[in-house]
């Protein structure tokens, strides 16, 4: 509780709004968990995201969020996605592959003050009939520029290895200038990890997206100190050791030492120190499927792995869950 009445009232208002299922719900994805996680990584908050119709810089327009609605109006459940490599319709059709929705069923429009939205075509006619406007021509230009800029940055990151953030920013700025992006530069922007990075891993194939790092207004790309790219891929890319461990921990009943040995063996090729945290999951954390069954039986399950940097050294922290362990 705060001593400021407004803060408590706002907290209650936030609770009430979140509790409304129409607002809080997202389109349901019935894919494997790793794919769901990958798609979730694509979700961006439209409030802070680039809203295509309201920005001047073409690149920022291209990285703008797209709202995918599951009705013929921009109302009801929505998934907010940003990926300039796909058209809004392709993006939304791909986001709900099991919902029986195909690209031809969808129509993209511009919603004044909200950006690009995709709705079911139905029998409502075009955008104008819904009180919306067609997608502006500037959006296509913005997407092309965004894709081109992203390609330069992601290719550089892939080939750079682990450069310190300032050095990464200096070299990427030079690469941008040579590539014709003369008004753009990369700037180091903090981060605890040893390697300069600009992309976040997103999408079912974990492609690199630089949208969150781009400031179109200042024409800068933020470089943050993070884990090496190869390490992040090894922990979260589909088919990677990290994702396989996640699925495998429900296949049998592991003791904690047994699962630790299993994890160490699976992650040994990464040649990184590994630290384990074993906790019971809080009551509101649900575990589904075979992992949930194993957890209920008292077996240890793999919760996740991430890179941390104590004392500047990269280390993998692996979270294991077991019912009888101390609560996290």
């Amino acid at each position, binding site marked *: *509780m*705060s*001593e*400021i*009445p*407004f*803060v408590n*009232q*706002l*907290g209650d*208002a*936030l*609770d*009430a*709004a*979140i*509790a*409304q299922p129409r*607002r*809080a719900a997202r389109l349901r994805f019935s894919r494997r968990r790793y794919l769901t996680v990958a798609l*979730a*990584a*694509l*979700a*961006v*908050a*439209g*409030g*802070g995201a680039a*809203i295509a119709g309201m920005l001047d810089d073409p690149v920022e327009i291209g990285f703008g969020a797209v709202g995918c609605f599951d009705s013929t109006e921009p109302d009801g459940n*929505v998934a*907010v996605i940003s990926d300039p490599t796909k058209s809004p319709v392709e993006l939304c059709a791909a986001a709900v592959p099991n919902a029986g929705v195909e690209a031809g069923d969808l129509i993209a429009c511009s919603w004044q*003050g*909200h950006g690009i939205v995709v709705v079911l075509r139905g029998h409502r006619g075009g955008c104008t009939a819904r009180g919306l406007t067609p997608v502006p021509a500037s959006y296509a230009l913005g997407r092309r520029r965004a894709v081109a800029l992203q390609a330069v940055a992601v290719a550089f990151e892939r080939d750079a290895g682990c450069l310190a953030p300032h050095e990464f920013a200096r070299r990427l700025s030079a690469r941008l200038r040579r590539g014709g992006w003369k008004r753009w530069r990369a700037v180091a922007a903090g*981060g*605890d*990890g040893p390697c300069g990075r600009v992309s*976040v891993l997103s999408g079912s194939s974990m492609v690199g997206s630089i949208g*969150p790092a781009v400031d179109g*207004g200042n024409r800068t790309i933020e470089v943050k100190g*993070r*884990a090496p790219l190869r390490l992040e891929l090894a922990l979260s890319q589909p088919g990677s050791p990290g994702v396989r461990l996640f699925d495998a921990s429900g296949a049998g009943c592991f003791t904690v030492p047994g699962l630790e040995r299993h994890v160490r063996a699976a992650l040994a090729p990464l040649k990184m120190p590994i630290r384990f945290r074993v906790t019971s999951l*809080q009551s*509101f*954390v*649900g575990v589904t499927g075979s992992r949930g069954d194993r957890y209920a039986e008292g077996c240890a399950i793999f919760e*996740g792995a*991430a*890179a*941390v*940097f104590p004392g500047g050294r990269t280390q993998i*922290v692996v979270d294991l869950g077991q019912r009888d362990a101390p609560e*996290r």
Partner: protein
Amino acid sequence: VTDAELIVASRRDPRAFRELYDRWADRLLAYLYRRVFDAEVAADLLAETFAVAYERRARFRDVGKPGGAWLYGIAAKELSHWFRSQEVERRAVHRLGIQVPELDEESIARIEALADVAAHRDALADALGQISGGEREAVELRVVAELPYAEIAVRLECSENTARQRVHRGLARLNNLMQLEATS
């Protein structure tokens, strides 16, 4: 439970998000107020910050950084937008349907006490000497004399909207100056 764990847990359970809110709301409100010197603007920015955080919680990746830094990052972006446009973004608040409560006098007084405004007014007075006359006068009337925008407009013989713009531009410059001072 760490902030990062709460953010991750909030993807499944809203109670975790409320706990995160309770941990950070006061500190973020003080942070915002120290930069805009307007309790109503700070309150609106706080609401939008948490609305954006709620919508973005699926994007959060626990890479060992404090979860609070993630919230400050969102707040800083909202502040940046406000300095550029003189408007608080409310898109996420609207999308979530949050009914932002009215700011009462008691809350305003407590926010000012929390933000330790008196100490910051001294630093502000020093920085005021470094900005242009028109903006300085507008900022002084707003921050030092605590006049409402309507009265500032009368004193400056301009529209209320122009008065707001002068205050906001002046505050943006002051914010930069004070950040430079803090890092020098």
